[in-house]
């Protein structure tokens, strides 16, 4: 039953997301493309691109869109897919919301506890690796072009490097995404 699996998967993703939206995107990717095969890597990259271009938290946007596509790919109609998208976003925020309420109520005084501090220090380091692995897994021939088919591959490499450097210099991601899309339209449309 896809709905139950979707709920359980996104419940897990929510509780194991340390480090915000990018970490959540990495966990969603592993669950839906590697573990469950609900989506292909290319479908997931497209969803990621749309989630980065639309308003709202990227983790929630990606969960919503992934829930929709996973149900659709399982052979259900578009309204069942809407239910899937709502279910995924509900499941992904359920446990963090409950924990945050408990934290505001009871746990704040434990924040300076030695064990809590040392666990978070380790988590922060590991999450860097988790996000790096997600980025590496997304570099596929479908999204970047096959090295032998030169134009697509070289253009993708240049776009990747340009966006990487500009985003480190705090350029607005929306303009970077729209610029890259425009470059794609011109490059692949005219050539």
């Amino acid at each position: 039953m896809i709905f139950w699996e979707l709920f359980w998967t996104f419940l897990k993703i929510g509780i194991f997301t340390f480090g915000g939206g990018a970490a959540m995107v990495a966990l969603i990717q592993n669950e839906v493309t590697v573990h469950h095969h609900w989506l292909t890597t290319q479908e997931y990259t497209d969803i990621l691109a749309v989630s980065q271009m639309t308003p709202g938290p990227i983790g929630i946007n990606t969960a919503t869109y992934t829930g929709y596509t996973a149900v659709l790919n399982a052979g259900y109609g578009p309204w069942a897919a809407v239910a899937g998208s709502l279910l995924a976003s509900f499941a992904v925020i359920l446990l963090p919301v409950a924990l945050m309420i408990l934290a505001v109520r009871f746990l704040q005084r434990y924040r300076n506890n030695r064990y809590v501090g040392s666990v978070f220090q380790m988590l922060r380091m590991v999450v860097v690796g988790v996000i790096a692995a997600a980025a590496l897994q997304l570099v596929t021939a479908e999204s970047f072009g096959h090295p032998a088919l030169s134009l697509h591959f070289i253009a993708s490499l240049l776009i990747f490097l340009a966006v990487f450097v500009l985003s480190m210099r705090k350029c607005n991601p929306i303009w970077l995404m729209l610029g890259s899309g425009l470059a794609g339209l011109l490059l692949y449309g005219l050539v």
Partner: protein
Amino acid sequence: MVKYCELFWSFFKIGTFTLGGGYAMIPLMEQELVDRHGWLSQADFLDQVALSQSMPGVLAVNMATGVGYRLKGLRGSVVAVVANVMMPIIFIITLAMLYRYFRSNPHVEHFFMGVRPAAVALIAAPVFKLAKSAGIGWKTLWVPVASALLIWLLGVNPIFVILAAIALGLLAGLLNRKGNEA
């Protein structure tokens, strides 16, 4: 007295008009909650940001939960969270439904061919900034590198890597205490 409709409207605006994810929402939240309405002091706001970053989940949703709860209890947190994610979810569902129809259009495909490597670059770019704020040096570089390789090459589920990090962190805390006592 904070009204539910004011709380709803504030988080509705924050969720609907911020492009670029949770971190982009923080300045807008500060403006709305601290400067405009005076619902939280600057110190309480920063405290809530720090707490939201250290708890699991998405930053924006954690912020909405914490602020809503501080102002109006359990119902307040539900109102703030729903207001925060409502429009983004409606946008995404609309786009997801439209994408199926436009996918075969060559212009859309060309646009996505350009945008895909950019989407990957936006995931890769924060890695170095996060590495700096996590205080990773030459001695601790093996931790993120080993985590990335385990997931990327060996196909280990990242959830297990995170569980291992929690266990290692607890162990390090225990060893530190013994070290201090000796």
